[in-house]
């Protein structure tokens, strides 16, 4: 199978869907003439023109609010947050407007808008350019929340997001853009809200998503190689809707669960997964659920500090070894 980078896969999804649906409108800061700071939208201005690939002022609240108006009047806007951290600038447009419009109107309007954003640390970008907000988006009802970890998933999930009738928060990771992976030729989509077993195993289940999924796979390799422990690795792919079934199915085999994400531990997605597993499959657990997540501090710049705040593969290995002793 051909290999593409995560960036190329995203661009291919945007291109194919824009060809298919003339209502898709991209808008954001430096996405057109400059091609996007992470190059995802490179070449799309030339291909689709300035009406559909729109450079905006630095006005996240304004252009996402406009996205709501576009979506309510028949368009499929795809506003881009250059960094996820800027979602807080646009918080009203996102959470008071887009997320609630349909419910507040008793279902009379819909907001088919996909907000694309990249998030995460690991590059020394500091506390205002490294955050991960999937828990915020999962907590406040109204958005589907998608976090692809591989190029193939990035393409298939983005195509589904662009066809969804609901608001979708499509979350990329800044350190995934240059990763490469096999991407099928031809048309395919991946449904939103369905987890994927990325590695099969017998002894414990590791659940993750986004870039941390790659760390989980790396940890699983090390556990096998150095400790003879067979870890099953599940890529949640979406935190809303959240596919607990696939996790429970795995637990019926492994009976041990480790959840890892780079975002802050407190009230994070891991806490939610753990609770739902407790509610639905407590009897399957042979040990307390283990969480390996970001520390509850703003993300520092120095590598020696950032590597402590954001859990690295060795932290997952340590967590797994502890879990296996329970």
């Amino acid at each position, binding site marked *: 199978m051909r290999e593409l980078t995560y960036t190329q896969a995203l661009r291919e999804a945007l291109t194919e869907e824009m060809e298919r649906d003339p209502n898709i*409108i991209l808008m954001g800061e430096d996405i057109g003439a400059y091609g996007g700071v992470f190059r995802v939208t490179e070449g799309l201005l030339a291909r689709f023109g300035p*009406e559909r690939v729109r450079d*905006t*002022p630095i*006005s996240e*609240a*304004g*252009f*996402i*609010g*406009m*996205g*709501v*108006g*576009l*979506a*309510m*009047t*028949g*368009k499929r*806007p795809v506003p881009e947050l250059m960094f996820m951290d800027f979602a807080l600038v646009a918080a*009203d*447009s996102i959470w*008071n*407007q887009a997320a609630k*419009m*349909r*419910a*507040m*109107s*008793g*279902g*009379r*309007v*819909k907001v*088919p808008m996909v907000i694309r954003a990249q998030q995460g640390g690991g590059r020394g970008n500091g506390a205002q350019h490294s955050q991960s907000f999937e828990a915020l988006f999962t907590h406040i*009802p*109204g958005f589907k929340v998608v976090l692809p970890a591989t190029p193939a998933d990035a393409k298939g999930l983005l195509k589904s997001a662009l066809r*969804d*009738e*609901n608001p979708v928060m499509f979350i990329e990771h800044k350190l995934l853009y240059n990763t490469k992976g096999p991407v099928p030729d031809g048309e395919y989509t991946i449904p939103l809200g369905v987890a994927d077993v990325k590695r099969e195993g017998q002894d414990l289940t590791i659940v993750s998503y986004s870039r941390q999924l790659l760390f989980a796979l790396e940890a699983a390799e090390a556990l096998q190689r150095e400790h003879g422990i067979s870890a099953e690795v599940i890529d949640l792919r979406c935190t809303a809707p959240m596919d607990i079934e696939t996790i429970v199915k795995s637990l019926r085999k492994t009976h041990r669960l480790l959840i890892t994400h780079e975002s802050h531990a407190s009230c994070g997605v891991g806490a939610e997964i753990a609770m739902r597993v407790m509610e639905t499959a407590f009897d399957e657990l042979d040990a307390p659920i283990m969480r390996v997540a970001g520390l509850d501090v703003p993300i520092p710049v120095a590598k020696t500090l950032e590597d402590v705040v954001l859990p690295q593969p060795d932290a997952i290995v340590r967590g797994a070894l502890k879990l296996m002793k329970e």
Partner: protein
Amino acid sequence: MSLPKDLLLSMYERMALIRAFEEACVQLYMEKEIRGSFHPCVGQEATAVGACFAINPDDYLTCTYRGHGACIAKGIDVNAAMAEMLGRRTGVSKGKGGSMHWADPSIGLLGENAIVAAGVPIAAGAALSAQLDRNGRVALTIFGDGAINQGAFHEALNMAQLWKLPLILLCENNLYAEMTPLAKSNPLEQVADRAKGYNMRAVVVDGNDVCAVYDAVREAARLARAGEGPTFIEARTYRLLGHMIGDSESYRTKEEVAAWRERDPIKRLRAHLAQAEGVTDAEFDAIHARVQQQIADAVKFARESPYPDPEEAYTDFWV
């Protein structure tokens, strides 16, 4: 006031309908049949009616939590609106939105909004949609003088002018942002000066003169449809009741309110119609009787409508 008599009469009747709707709601609120928030627009009917009568049925509208007047002027079903006030499943938003969240895409109404200035970028988005589709529609957004100090307002004005969007920005300057007088919330000599910073056309009108509002919005719509971009309209008006029910109104004097009651937009239009068009008291009585009947019917409809079933807590949310 040089508009045709028929138009003036229908605007008069709609203003009377809005007044009667709001007065009925005040009563129902005091009797605890309406719960939650309610921000009556009594006194501001000329702005709502003048503006919404000056655009087409398929033009877009966003307004605010004080937006009943605009929604009724745009043509919302009054029965469904009253049922929404009473939290019934026959309400315009099935009882889920209440007073501050009426929406009806069939009349171009993209929603009231409970967040100050949030409707402005949404209307700008609808205007962009119309521009992209080249369908000749315009978007009207109505907001208060409090909105002019919000970030979303400024961002939307900037982009609207930058892209020459077919957008009409109508500020209902009622002199108070909630309980704060205008002079204490911004340093401008007049609200319309906000537009200067965006190189945007701006006009000031007497918001209690329905014809002045109508003419200004009609011209703004003409320019917008001709590709001339947005217009900012400051309509000077006054809310004769408090910000919400139970407002102590300690921030203004009884004399000030009394002076504005003399400039009541409905009284003014009535005086003009009587004087210039020869409309008789009997004709006015007939209009008011129709309006009162319509409101009585709406209240009856709402009261006889069922509440939403508990299971509906999960519906009308995901598509």
